[in-house]
C-alpha cells in the first residue's frame, strides 16, 4: 500500500525538484589578465547574477587543464590583457569562456549565461559613455568534448546504471529466489557455509557484469567515438570495484528481502530511480535542492560516474579520483559488513 500510494508522490516530487535545467551557484574560476575597471565590473555582474560562484582566481600561466581536472570548476573566464583599453580604443575586446564539456548540457548553459551577461553589460552600461560601436568577442571553448556530444555524458551514466542493475538487482533477486523456492532451506540445513552460498550466487553475476562493462566501453569508443584518454587498466579496475560494490549491495538487499517481489521493489526504488535521478547522470547535482544534494552523496553511481568521466574524458589518474575511489571502497565494505551481520544461518 505504501508503495502504491507513496511512489507517485515521491516520484513527482523528485522529478519536479530534480529536473530543473536552470543552473544556480555553478563554480567558476576567473583569469583576469587585465585587472581594470571594466573586467572588475563584469566579474561583479557575473557573480551577482546568482548563477555563478567564484571558486578560484587564477594567475596568468596557470595550467587550465589542472583546474578542470580537480573537477570543481565548471567554467573559466579568461579576460585578455588590456581589456578596457582595447575596448575603448579599438572598439573590440576578447574574453574566452572555457567550459568543462564532459557534461555538455551544463557547459552549454553556462557559456550562454556568461556571454549573455557580458554582452548585456557592454550594451547597457558602456554604450552610455561611449559613442563608438563596441564589441566584446566572447570566444567559447568546450574542453573534453569539443563537439558537445551528449553521448559523452550518456556512456558513463548508462554504464553505471546497467552495472548497478545487473549486479545488484540480479544478485538480490537470485538469492531471494532461493528463499522463495525453498531451496534455501535445504542449503541452510547442509554443511555449506554462508560465504559459500553467497559466493556461489554472486560469481556468475560478477562475470556477467564485467562482460557488460567491457561491452559498453567498446561500443562507446568504437561506435560513438567516446575517447579513453586515461589508462584502460585503471578504468577496468575502477569498473571492477564498482561491480563489487553493486554485488555487495545486492547481497545486502537479499538478506533483508523475504522474496523476489520485495527484492525487485527495493532494487528498483533504491537503485534504479536514484541512479537515474540523483547520480548527476542526467541532471546536474548542483541544481538540486540541498536535501537531495546530501542524499546524492550516498548514491554509489554518483561517484562512479565522476571517476569514469575523469578517466575517459579528462585522462586523469588516481591522483584526481582517489577520494571517489575511497568512497566506493568504503561503501563496499559497509555493504559486505552489513550483509554478513544480516545473513541468517537459520530460517528466522
Amino acid at each position: 500500500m505504501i508503495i502504491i500510494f507513496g511512489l507517485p508522490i515521491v516520484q513527482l516530487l523528485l522529478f519536479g525538484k530534480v529536473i530543473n535545467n536552470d543552473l544556480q551557484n555553478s563554480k567558476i574560476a576567473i583569469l583576469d589578465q587585465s585587472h581594470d575597471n571594466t573586467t572588475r565590473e563584469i566579474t561583479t555582474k557575473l557573480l551577482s547574477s546568482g548563477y555563478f560562484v567564484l571558486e578560484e582566481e587564477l594567475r596568468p600561466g596557470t595550467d587550465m587543464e589542472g583546474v578542470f581536472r580537480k573537477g570543481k570548476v565548471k567554467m573559466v573566464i579568461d579576460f585578455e590583457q588590456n581589456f578596457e583599453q582595447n575596448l575603448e580604443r579599438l572598439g573590440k575586446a576578447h574574453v574566452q569562456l572555457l567550459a568543462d564539456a564532459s557534461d555538455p548540457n551544463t557547459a552549454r548553459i553556462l557559456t550562454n549565461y556568461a556571454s549573455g551577461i557580458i554582452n548585456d553589460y557592454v550594451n547597457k552600461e558602456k554604450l552610455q559613455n561611449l559613442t563608438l560601436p563596441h564589441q566584446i568577442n566572447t570566444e567559447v571553448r568546450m574542453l573534453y568534448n569539443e563537439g558537445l556530444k551528449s553521448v559523452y555524458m550518456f556512456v558513463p551514466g548508462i554504464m553505471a546504471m546497467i552495472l548497478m542493475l545487473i549486479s545488484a538487482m540480479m544478485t538480490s533477486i537470485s538469492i531471494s529466489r532461493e528463499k522463495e523456492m525453498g531451496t534455501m532451506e535445504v542449503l541452510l540445513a547442509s554443511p555449506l557455509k554462508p560465504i559459500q552460498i553467497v559466493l556461489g550466487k554472486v560469481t556468475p553475476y560478477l562475470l556477467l557484469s564485467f562482460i557488460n562493462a567491457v561491452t559498453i566501453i567498446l561500443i562507446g569508443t568504437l561506435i560513438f567515438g567516446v575517447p579513453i584518454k586515461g589508462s584502460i587498466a585503471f578504468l577496468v579496475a575502477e569498473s571492477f570495484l564498482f561491480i563489487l560494490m553493486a554485488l555487495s549491495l545486492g547481497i545486502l538487499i537479499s538478506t533483508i528481502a523475504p522474496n523476489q517481489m520485495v527484492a525487485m521493489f527495493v532494487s528498483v526504488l533504491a537503485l534504479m530511480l536514484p541512479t537515474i535521478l540523483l547520480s548527476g547522470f542526467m541532471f546536474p547535482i548542483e541544481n538540486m535542492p540541498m536535501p537531495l544534494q546530501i542524499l546524492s552523496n550516498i548514491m554509489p553511481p554518483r561517484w562512479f560516474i565522476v571517476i569514469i568521466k575523469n578517466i575517459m574524458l579528462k585522462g586523469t589518474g588516481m591522483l584526481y579520483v582517489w577520494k571517489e575511489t575511497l568512497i566506493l571502497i568504503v561503501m563496499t565494505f559497509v555493504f559486505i559488513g552489513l550483509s554478513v551481520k544480516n545473513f541468517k544461518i537459520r530460517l528466522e
Partner: protein
Amino acid sequence: MKTNSKNKASQHVSQNPLSRRGLEEASISIQNINKSYGPVQALQNISLEINRGELFGLIGPDGAGKSTLMRILMTLLFQDSGTATMNGLDVVKDYKKIRKIVGYMPGRFSLYQDLTVEENLNFFATVFNTSITENYDLIKDIYIQIEPFKSRLAGKLSGGMKQKLALSCALIHKPEILVLDEPTTGVDAVSRKEFWEMLKKLQEKGITILVSTPYMDEAMLCTRVALMQKGKVLDVNTPQKLVENYDRKLYAIRSDDMHRLIQDLRSWEKTDTAYAFGQFLHVTGKADETEACEFENYLLKKEHRELQVFDIPPTIEDVFMNMMNE
C-alpha cells in the same frame, strides 16, 4: 575454550549410547521444547525420545506443529525454551555438526526445478562433499526408479518422482538421521506405498528416521508414533498399542442418506461423536453401554432406509479423533 568443553560433553553423551549399540538408545532427544510465533503457541512443552534405528512418525493435522518441531531439530529455527539433541549434539550449539550428519527433506519440494534429476543429485553430493558413486549403495533402490528420467528437469517430474528424487538427495551423504517433513503429501497412493517401503528398507540399514504425515494409515507403518495436535503431543506409543488402548465401543453406520444421517446422529443426545469414514460413519455413544440396537431404533424412527449398524474395530484415526476431543 568454552566450545571445547562443550564438545567434550557432547562426545561423552554420544559415546555412551554407542557402547550399548543395539539397545534402546536415544537418537533424538527432545526436552520441554516451547516455540511460539507471536501470540500463536506452535509447540507447547514437547518432550520426546526417539531411539536409534526407529522409524518414528509425527502424526497430526496441519498446524499441529510438526514442521516447526522438525525445523528446530534441523537447526533451522530456535526454540524459545527447552533443549534437543540429535545423536548427542545440541541443536543450538552444535548446529554445524548436526548439519553434516542429518538428511532433511522439507515439506515443500525444495530441489532446483531448473536442473535435471542427475544435476540435482550431483549438486547435493557436492554440497555435502561427497559423490554419487561413494554412497550409491544407499540410494540405489530409490534412484533406479528415477534413473530413466535422469535428464529430465526436476520441475517436470510427477509428484511421486519428485519425492523419490528429494529422498535420494537427502540420503546422498549417508546421514545418520533422516528427517522427512510430510514426504507423501500430494503423492498418489501407489507412490506412497513404494515410498514407505523404501523408508522401511532404510530403517533396516540402521538410519533413524523421523517422518511426519497427516495420513493416519501411514501411522501404522511406523515403529512408534507421536500424535500431535495444536502444538501438543497427545500420546506416544506403537501404533498397535494405541489402537489396543482404545477402550470405547465403536459402530459403523450407513444408510441411503448419509448427509441426513450424520445430522440426525449428531443431534441425538446419546451420541458422542459421529465422523464420516469412507462409506460409513464411525459413531460412539456418550455412554459405552449404548447398544447397536439403540442406534438402530432411533434411526429407524427417523425413517432412514437401507440402514446398517455393526461393531467395528478401531483404526488409528478413531484413536486420534477420540484424543482430539478429550
